[in-house]
């Protein structure tokens, strides 16, 4: 791929934004590693020198300067502890800040995506991506400081060992370098692949679960529940095996590190044998500390496969950015040249179930994939109008309204953020829901639960209606607004809708198979199905043929 993928661009932008913190974390990492190496080396040197001085008798011992080395040891211990704290806090802060920005950006991208994609997203799966997969990227930020730490450790170790002998220094440098190269190669097999497999297997496992849970009735009727369980457990097993391989892979890396340490111990004894004891001790513990620090770098590599897979899973959520500077279009709808509506128009749509009535109106608002060459808004083909321009024209009460988890007021203000409590009550009144809410002590602050589960089906429908009333858009679009309501309530709602439309001057598009609401309309269209191109076919009802002479309303 020549072009950088969308998610990588977003992450790179965040890395740039967090550059200050990331540099600070890297500096801390260098301090930690260098201090750890020098600390261990000097401690060993100090102890050996003390012993030699002690053996030489109390006169030598009295003149032995133990103040400077012991002060250095204290300082290095503090530097190591403080530096580690700093590296972790600053590094994670950078990551957390970046992730906090990344999540709303991804959500924005989802809202701007093609509705065929965004409205097809499963909420569970997408939420998992926005939380867990974004979290996995955290490791990517945190590990950015590790190479600097390993580099500083290697440098400090080489300098320390050079005190013993240049050959020792070169040998330790070589062992450190070869260890890192071997570990990086090992990571490809031991952790990259299992890490990637783990994320992919997790996705497959979840997919299997969702599919088979949805098929539960069929499984039950045909006695296949046991088989489905086995199938799910088989894919769970693949997932668990990948997880196990990942942790075993990290284990091999640790083993590789211990092996490198053992080689370093032998190498130091062989190359520095003729040196003073204190310097051998210094080189010995210094080189062990170098490999310890390099191991930290290798540890961060074990997340690579998992991070890459997480980025790939996030990729589909990143849409091509669209500019939002769309000029408003005039409220003039032209459906196949058959129906031309402005805000004085009231179009009633009938037709059998499943014929495409809802599809037609939802295409107007870009809530369904749009078919070009059927509908024009303000003279432009619908396919050339942006979703934002199209949606601005309508206020929609669907058959099954969706609600956010929150209170009545929060849901109503989704449509009109600035409306007053009085306006909310007026809309509820018109939707015949005000009385029901007045009975609740919390009124507008009544919590609705997830997707308004505390309301009955009819109440949800009326709440959706009240919400649509509140938005000051040129057209009101209502899909079966009175379905499931008793005759008296239906009559009241229709009467108030009529009054409301006269007051607000809004146009109306109304889908219903009931005669009463359709009486509000001055034009009727019958949807009869879809043609081969997927276009909804709409025509004038037979008995109204005469009236349809004047199609412009």
């Amino acid at each position: 791929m020549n072009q950088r993928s969308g998610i990588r661009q977003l992450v790179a932008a965040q890395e740039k934004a967090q550059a200050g913190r990331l540099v600070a974390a890297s500096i801390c990492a260098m301090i930690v590693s260098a201090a750890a190496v020098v600390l261990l080396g000097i401690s060993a040197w100090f102890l050996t020198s003390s012993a030699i001085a002690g053996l030489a008798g109390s006169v030598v011992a009295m003149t032995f300067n133990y103040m400077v080395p012991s002060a250095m040891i204290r300082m290095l211990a503090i530097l190591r502890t403080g530096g580690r704290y700093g590296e972790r806090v600053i590094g994670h802060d950078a990551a957390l800040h970046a992730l906090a920005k990344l999540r709303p950006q991804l959500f924005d991208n989802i809202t701007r995506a093609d509705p065929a994609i965004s409205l097809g997203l499963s909420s569970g799966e997408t939420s998992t991506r926005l939380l867990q997969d974004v979290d996995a990227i955290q490791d990517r930020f945190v590990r950015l400081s590790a190479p600097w730490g390993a580099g500083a450790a290697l440098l400090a170790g080489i300098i320390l060992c050079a005190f013993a002998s240049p050959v020792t220094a070169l040998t330790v440098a070589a062992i450190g370098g070869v260890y890192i190269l071997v570990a990086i190669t090992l990571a490809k097999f031991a952790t990259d692949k299992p890490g990637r497999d783990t994320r992919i297997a997790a996705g497959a496992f979840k997919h299997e679960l969702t599919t088979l849970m949805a098929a539960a009735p069929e499984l039950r009727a045909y006695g296949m529940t046991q088989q489905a369980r086995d199938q799910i457990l088989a894919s769970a097993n693949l997932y668990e095996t990948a997880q196990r391989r990942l942790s075993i892979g990290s284990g091999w890396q640790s083993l590789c590190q211990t092996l490198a340490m053992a080689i370093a111990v032998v190498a130091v004894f062989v190359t520095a044998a003729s040196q003073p004891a204190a310097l051998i001790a210094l080189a010995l513990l210094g080189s062990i500390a170098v490999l310890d620090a390099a191991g930290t770098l290798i540890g961060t590599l074990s997340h690579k496969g998992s991070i890459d897979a997480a980025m790939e899973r996030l990729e589909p959520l990143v849409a091509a950015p669209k500019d939002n500077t769309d000029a408003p279009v005039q409220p003039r709808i032209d459906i196949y040249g058959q129906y031309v509506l402005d805000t004085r128009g009231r179009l009633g749509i009938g037709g059998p179930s499943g014929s495409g009535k809802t599809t037609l109106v939802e295409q107007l608002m870009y809530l369904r994939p749009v078919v070009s060459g059927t509908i024009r808004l303000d003279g432009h083909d619908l396919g050339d109008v942006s979703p934002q321009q199209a949606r601005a024209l309508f206020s929609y009460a669907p058959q099954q309204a969706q609600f956010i988890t929150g209170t009545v007021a929060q849901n109503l203000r989704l449509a009109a953020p600035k409306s007053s409590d009085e306006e909310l009550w007026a809309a509820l009144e018109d939707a015949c829901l005000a009385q029901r809410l007045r009975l609740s002590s919390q009124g507008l602050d009544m919590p609705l639960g997830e997707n308004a589960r505390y309301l009955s089906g009819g109440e949800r429908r009326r709440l959706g209606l009240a919400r649509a009333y509140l938005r000051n858009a040129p057209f009101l679009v209502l899909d079966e607004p009175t379905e499931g309501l008793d005759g008296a309530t239906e009559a009241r709602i229709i009467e108030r809708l009529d009054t409301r439309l006269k007051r607000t001057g809004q146009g109306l598009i109304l889908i219903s198979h009931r005669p009463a609401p359709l009486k509000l309309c001055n034009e009727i269209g019958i949807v009869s199905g879809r043609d081969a191109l997927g276009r909804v076919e709409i025509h004038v009802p037979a008995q109204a043929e005469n009236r349809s002479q004047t199609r412009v309303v």
Partner: protein
Amino acid sequence: MTATDIQSPDPASKEASRAAANWLSAATAPWKKRATLSAALVIADVVPAIGFAAGLGLALGAIVPALADPGAASVLKAVTPGAALAVGSLLLRGVLGQAATLSASHLSQSIKSALRGRLMSGVFSGKLSDSEAMAAAVEGVDALDGFITRFRPIKTAAVVSPLVLIAAAAVVSPFTAGILVFTLLPFVIGMALTGMAAAAESRRQFVAMERLSGLFLDRIRALPAILAFQSETQQSRQIARASDELARRTSKVLKVAFLSSAILEFFSALAVALVAVYCGFNLLRLLPFPAPDVLTLGQAFFLLALAPEVYQPMRRLAAAYHDRQAADSAVPHLQALEQAAPAAVTRSINLHHAPALTFDKVTITYGDAAPVISDFSLTVPTGRTIALIGASGTGKSSLIHLLLGLSPLSGGQILIDGEPLASGEDLSASIAYAGQAPMVIPGTLEDNIRIALPQASTRQIMEAAAKAGLRGDLARNIDERGGGLSGGERRRLGLARAFLKPAPILLLDEPTAHLDAASEQALLAIIKQASEGRTTLIATHSDAVAALADTVVELS
């Protein structure tokens, strides 16, 4: 705001924590022996730890005399035994570490796999929402991984290993062992205090995490409304706020965790320094008090290399503490799924004639939501067809699921030919079913039809396919996502299954939803034929399908 009904379990409250611990130990009880082995391998690490320290002491202790006496054998020869011991110990340490990893990860897979197997009945009970069931079966079980592989083995090791290492130090220098015991106490107290602070912070972080997760779930679900009302900016601001909140909370948790590990590191450095100072002055023979033991250089190195190892297991325990918290907070979700498992089927009802089906004052309630169906009564007479119509969410599917034992009956009863269906009695053997998205299994079209009656002959399958209007080669392969089948053909597959199974009850759930008018029309005669001689219940939005029924019942 949106967290009003997102109840999160409080992982730190004492009773919850104790209940979670009890559940976890009961759930992992069958693997006790292997868990002990895992812990033993972690504890066994003290052997190479002592070996490495001894090797280092021996080797360095041998250098000074060797250097002091140039006539003696070369330094290399003098240090060989010690160096060999140190190198051997390092290798043993690596091997033991990997053995512990292998054992723990194998154990973890066994436990997770068995637990998922046990939770599966709950997954298919229909009592929990799909997302709840999925969260428990995937993430909930995963949360036990760190608990099994890290926290539990190190928990035992944190008590045993330091004592063994101190005992080893006591052999060489009882006074140094005394120093180590003495510093252990403040170390443990410090660990407990930071642990408590971390628990409080991580509880708040957990709540912030749940809130953000709930917010995402909710807003993606309500996306059509958000788009239609152009509320994207408003929603994305809310998500940014919750996202910032989570970052702040997480940052606090991490700061406490990092601070606590820094404090523990500092404590251990202090303790090591104390040992080093004692050893150093002992070697210099400059102790301001009468020396309790006289150390050689080798012994001093041994003690100094051993000292940090004493604190290592406890530092690892502190680092693994969040694994325990994660497991604790997963337990309530796992319990909910476990309890959702339906009562065992005691009797499978196999009817040979079309029965009269009666719903008698039936109420169906999922969790704490308002009842989907309440006090509903209806009789489907022998061999007749009733269509259930009404808007989505009025409980059409729930009634159909009820007959299959997939929705919770919270009031009333079901009668078969006037006889009440007792709990534990299962009707599904007598039911043929077709829905709007018939399941497709990997295999041929014939295999896919056969699932309705495994013992059916090819001739029977061909007849069923012909009745359902499925044309073409029965031996053609179909992939799992239904590749090779059109929407209409997929419905026909469901109906072919219903034809094949000679069951006296037929349940159809939206058999023509999302089909175009022509395809629906083509299915009507087939549905009619499938319902002949069977007691049939159809849930549908379609007027044309409803017209096939003897009676139409509207739910509201």
